[in-house]
Structure formats: C-alpha cells, structure tokens
C-alpha cells in the first residue's frame, strides 16, 4: 500500500518539505526568550537567515467580536487590554469615535487632561519597549533603568486614575474623574526629572560604540519600502517619512500645541530604536506645554445618557499611539452596541515588514531587527 501523504494544507512550520542539509529550521518562540508571545519560523543557512515567517496569534482574544455584544461604556475596559502599557492611547480612537457617533462636545479641560494622560502613557510604553530592546541586545543596564524609571509615570497615572496600568481613564465625553489638587506641580517635577534621566540613556546606550556597530546598517528599510509595506509610527519616521497623526490630523488639542516630529533618514535598526527615545523627549515637551495651557478649573466630563445609542452611521478615527497610527472603525445601527468594531493597530502593520527585513540578515541580528519594529505581540493579535 502506498504511503499516505497528507494533502491538506498544513499550518506553517509543519509542512512536508524537501529537506535541505544546509538549511536548518528554527522555531524561535513562543517560549523563546527572544520572541515575545509569538513564533518566528526562521530558516538559516549557516548564520544567515534565508527565510523568516512570523506566526502571530498566540494571544488572540477576539476583542473586536467581544465589542459587538457590549454597549459603548462597558466596551472601555476590555478594549484597552491589547496594550495595557499604552492603555490610554489604544482607547483614544474608540472614545473619539463614540463621541462623533453620539454627537457630544468635550470640555476644554478634559481635552488637555486627555493629552497629558496620553503622553504619559506613551512614555510608559516606550520605556517598557526600550527595556526589552536593551535585554534583547544583551545590555542588562538598559533593561533595569527604563523598567525603574517607568515607575515615575506609573505612580502619576495611579494618582490620576487609581490604577497602575489598566487605567480605563478615557470615557466618551471626557475623562472618568478629575486630576488631584496638586497634580500640576507633581507632574511638572516628575517630567523634569524624567527628562534628565532619559537623557542619560543616550550616554550609556545610544552613544555606545558596540550598539552602533551592531545596529547601524542592519535591517535597512528604505523610504519607498516603508511606504509600500504600510509601516507606521516610529518605523516610518526612522525611514525618513515625516508622518505623525498628531501633526497631520490633529485631534483634541494637539493643534494648539507645538508638536515636533522626529524624523531620521537612515532607516536601520539604530534609527528605528532612536526615534521612540526622541519621542519620549518630545512627549515631555508636550506635557509641559499642556500643563501651561490647561484651564485651571472647569468640567472634565460631559455626561452621556445612561445607555447611549449611535445613529445609522459609521465612523473612523485615529490617533498616534506608541507604536504608530492606531485607528478605530465603528459601524453603528441604532443600537446601544456597535454593529462592528475594527481596531487598526501599528503593531500589525509594522510586523508585515519583518520578513522583508530579516531576509539575508545574520541570525545574531534577529532580535535587534525584530524588536526595533516597535511591535507588541498582544496588540497585533487583538
């Protein structure tokens, strides 16, 4: 009897294939220290990567489907779960969209508080990302420093919202509660200290000759490729494209603030890792400006009806999150729940570039290239 050959389409990594003695297949992840909650199937010839196949989906939670059975208010806490470290920014487009659907105005003070909270969260996220980038390159000090300095802003967010990471602070119509009484002073002091600290990262990490030798000219993404592959956020800006949603499509009060876009031309891993760091410095500037211009008193929330309904309408809003443009598309059919909700996130868009960047690189460059994409596995899976 003939041997039974499976004809079914097998999942990646399990296909029956011609075995080449020179090519070794490595399953990097999902239990690998250098992978995160995903798997990269890497085929290597000696020390060179000939093929890379990212295999996300290990932490898929069906957030979009869950959103269809919950009303607009109860959607808030679970929609921030994809990136709990950047929870304000990932919730921002949803809140803006619901406000458009329901048609309510947001008080001026709430807009400023939102911007401050979003920028604080961006710093918290980038610190976490930077810590992991440091440990991926074997730089243990760069793991400990950001992980410790993150606490400053986590404490600040805890003062504002009551939770350390999962804030659920933004609600349609404003923010959930007002900031504490001495918030301006505390925030300004923390931000100034934080800025001083992150400038020290430049000395130990970004100016380090070994880091430069390792990451410069690795995984180069040209300007054209960056646009063609649809990358966003820091990856796009590191390739020389001047694009930032905060500047191009300002939401809330970003048009009243002076936001500078950090653009680097090189497009290599070093530039991609440096742009978020520059973004953190820029965030500090934005927070200082917002604290100055924020109305000292006033309403922070326009009350909604108990169970708000959208019209027969659809809306798409987007913001600049820590990983790039994060969008939220809501279809409403005159129900208290959204008919369809779609999150469009920067992580997944940047992941698309990974196989292009890894091909032809050395295996030793894989962590440097992979994590420089500013990719968060949980957000990509949603």
């Amino acid at each position, binding site marked *: 009897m003939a041997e039974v050959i499976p004809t079914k389409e097998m999942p990646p990594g399990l296909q029956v294939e011609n075995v080449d003695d020179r090519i*070794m297949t*490595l399953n990097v992840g999902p239990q*690998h*220290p*250098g992978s995160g909650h995903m798997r990269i199937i890497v085929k290597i010839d000696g*020390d060179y990567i000939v093929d890379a196949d990212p295999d996300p989906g290990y932490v898929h939670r069906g957030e979009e489907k869950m959103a269809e059975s919950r009303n607009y208010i109860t959607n808030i806490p679970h929609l921030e779960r994809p990136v709990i470290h950047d929870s304000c920014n990932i919730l921002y487009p949803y809140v803006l969209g619901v406000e458009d659907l329901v048609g309510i105005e947001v008080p001026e003070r709430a807009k400023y508080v939102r911007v401050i909270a979003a920028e604080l969260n961006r710093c918290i996220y980038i610190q976490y990302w930077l810590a992991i980038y*440091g*440990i*991926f*390159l*074997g*730089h*243990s*000090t*760069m*793991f*400990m*420093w950001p992980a*410790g300095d993150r606490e400053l802003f986590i404490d600040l967010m805890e003062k504002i919202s009551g939770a350390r990471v999962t804030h659920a602070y933004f609600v349609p119509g404003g923010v959930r509660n007002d900031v504490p009484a001495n918030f301006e002073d505390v925030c300004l002091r923390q931000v100034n200290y934080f800025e001083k600290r992150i400038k020290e990262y430049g000395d*130990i*990490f970004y100016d*380090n000759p*070994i*880091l430069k*030798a*390792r990451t410069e000219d690795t995984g180069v993404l040209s300007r054209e490729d960056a646009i063609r592959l649809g990358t966003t956020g820091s990856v796009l800006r590191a390739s020389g494209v001047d694009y930032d949603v905060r500047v191009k499509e300002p939401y809330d009060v970003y048009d009243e603030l002076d936001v500078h876009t950090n653009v680097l031309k090189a497009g290599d891993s070093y530039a991609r890792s440096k742009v978020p760091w520059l973004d953190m410095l820029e965030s500090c500037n934005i927070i200082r400006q917002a604290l100055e211009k924020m109305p000292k008193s006033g309403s922070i929330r326009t009350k909604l009806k108990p169970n708000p309904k959208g019209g027969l309408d659809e809306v798409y809003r987007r913001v600049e999150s820590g990983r790039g443009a994060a969008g939220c598309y809501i279809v409403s059919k005159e129900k208290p729940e959204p008919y369809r909700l779609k999150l469009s996130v920067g992580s997944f868009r940047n992941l698309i570039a990974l196989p292009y960047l890894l091909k032809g690189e*050395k*295996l*030793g*460059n*894989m*962590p440097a290239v992979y994590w420089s994409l500013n990719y968060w596995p949980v957000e990509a899976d949603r």
Partner: protein
Amino acid sequence: MSVIAPKFRLGYFLKGIFDNAFWILTIVTLAGIPLIQIVLFYMDLPVIDGELLTAFLAFTWLFNPTMQVPLIKSLLYSDLFRIAAFPGFGFAALIAAGTIFVERKMLAKLQLRVGPFYCGKIEGLLQLAGDGLKLISKEIIIPAKADKPLFWAAPVLFVGTAAAFVALIPVAPGGWVVADLDVGLLAVFAVIGFFPIITILSAWSANSKFPFIGGIRALHQMVSFEIPLILSLLSVVILTGTLNLSEIVESQSNFPWIIFLPISAIVFFTAMLAELERIPFDLPEAESEIVAGWLTEFSGMMYGLVQLGSYLKLYAFAALFVIIFLGGWTGPMFWPPLETELITTGTPIPNFKGDPVLTVFAPGLPLFDKDPNEWVLQEQGELQYTSGQLLINGVIWFVLKTVAVIFFILLPRGVFPRIRIDMLLHIGWYKLIGLAFVNIFIALGLVYAGVLGPGGIM
C-alpha cells in the same frame, strides 16, 4: 517593596535550632566520620620525631601544645592541602564565590536596584549558598536523544580543566603553587586549549539545536582568540627568557611588565574576556538569540558545575593577568620585620619600675615557615623577614590585584551590549593579532637595544 515576615515565636525558634543541630550531628556522624577515615587511610602520613603519624597519635597530639605546631605544619606542607585548600581549589573557589557576590551587588548598584537582599540577613550574603542548595535539589533532566556518557562527562570535565588551570597559578613566594612546572606558561596554553573541546563535546552530545549553535559559536570564539592570547604573552617570554610563572613574577620585582608592554596587556585582556565568554563577548550564551547557548540543556547541578567551572576559570585568568603583567605578589611590605627574639625567646614587658613581669610570644607566624626548627629569614631589599611574613604579605598583594582585575572583567557587563559573531571574529583575526605582532616587535626591539630582557637592566 514589603515582605510579610512571620511572627517571631521562641518555641519555633528553639525547635528550629534543635532540629538543625540534630540533623547536622546525624549527617556528620553518618557521612563525615567515614569520610575522615577514608582520607586518613589514603593520606601519606608524615614522620615526626621519628614516629609515624597515625590517626591515634594525631588525636593524642592535637591536645598536646608542644606537638600542635609541627602537626599543623605537616598538614600545611602536604600535597593534599595544596591541591584542596590553599593555592589550589579551595582558595580559588573562595575567590570565585566572592566574585559572584561582588558581581551581583555591583551590577545591582549600577542598575539602581538592590540585588540579593534577604538570604543571609546581611546584604544577601548567603544567596549563593541558597542557589547552590537549590541546584543540588533539582532534578537532572537529560534530553532523550543525547549521547549520555559524553553529556554527563562534560560538566565534570569542565570543572576539572578549570581546576587544572588553577593548579598552575603560583600565589605566594616560596613555591606556593600546586604544580611548579618549568614550562608553566606552555601548560597554561595547553589547558586553555582544552576548553573549546569540552564545549563542543557537550554541545554536540546534547543533540539539540540551540546548544549546537552555541557550541559552534564558542568554538569559533575560543579558537580565534587563543592566537592573540598566546602571541600577546610571547613578548613577556621574550623579555624574561623563561616559561616558569614563578620566575616571571620574580622578574617583575622592580617594575611590572604592563609599563613596558601596555599593548600586550590590552590584547591579553580583550582575548581573556572572549575566552571567558563574558559580555560583550558572551555570544555562546546569548539569551535573546539562542536561549542559553551550549548551556541550554544542562539542568540542576550539572548547570551548577559548569557555572563553578566558569568562575574558577575567571579567577585563573585574572590571576594569570596579575602574574604576567602586574607583578604577581610583589609589592611593598605592610609591616616592619619581626624581631627574632619575639618568636624564639619572647619579649619581656617591664612594669613601671623596670622589672620584667610579662613575656609575650608570637608563635603564630612561624607556622608558615618551611623549616620546622629554624626561623628562616629571607632578604627583601635590605631588611630581613620571616618567610611566614613574606607569604602573608604576598597573598594580600596577590588577592588585592586579582580582585581589581576581576572587577574590570565584571564591569563591562553593566556597560556594553553583546557584539555579533562576525564583529567578534573580525576583532580577533584582524585587530588583536595585528596588535600582538606589533607588540612582539616592540619586545624584540627592547631586547636587541639592550634596554630590557635577559641581558638588560634586569
């Protein structure tokens, strides 16, 4: 950070103490006494005062004050003591343990955290002991397709080779070294050359992908950095005209070689970091790329043994650097020479009238003198010291210098990221070998100009 400490109860405390005492007594009785008997059975017993030292006599003399000193001295000068305790394994293991503690705390201070804190009450002193106990109590898992004899042998061989390296290191003047070879430096090179073989054996025998890649990387790294390592030491051999490590140290009694051969020291230090697989050259254990490299499949005490071996190796390399470039144990004396009367007849201390009422003896130091009957005086410059004094002074200088070198080996771990394999090979084959050759020509120039070397101002 807060820790919920259990409430102190005297009853539990006493019970804990008695339990511990009970188990210690039991273990000592069941395991210790047979062990002591075995050791006594195989030990080469010395003849003291015409009598063979038996176990019975030893116990009898142990409580006889006049016999204590020769008894202990005979132990100090036995081969077992040298191999197991002072210049050999025990001394190296002690410094290795200190190294691990310093590494953890120093790195923690650098990274703005606390480090080991609770175990041992004071700054986590006993954390290492706790880790060791944990590793011993863990199950040893061996991959199903591994080549079992080789896989078992690799950690033991690694520690054995590291201990062989330690055995070649002289620590103090007067031949305090386990194996005093005339070809000491060649023997060191031979031992260093054995490490990549063990690494690749263990990596291959595990029959797993990540250890294999790590082993190949380790092989690349160690083989390509051995050449600059040997070439950089060649210049010192040219200048001293000897391969004996003790004689190399004695040749530096006036000035250490690092003054004349700084390039050699830099090349040797860099190659040393690569041989030790420390950051920035820790490619064989690169966590984010190949899990734990060639250590991936080791579990339990097998991993502990490999770690012990690597820290012994670290001590041995630092000591080699001290011996060859920093002058080993040479250094100014910490105290003035002892008067002979203080040791032999004692110094009388008078009262206020001038009558001697008290006589002070200092019998401790001559314990380390070689000749059991006479206090051997050795010249150090113009003054004369007992050899016991020279030994203690030499050991202090040696340990101080070694610890300083170890500190500089540990420091890059907090400062540098890991480099890539092609950059590593480029550094090894292009830059370091070129520098080492430049250095050899400098040494040859110094010799032929008659400035230094066997016929120079030495």
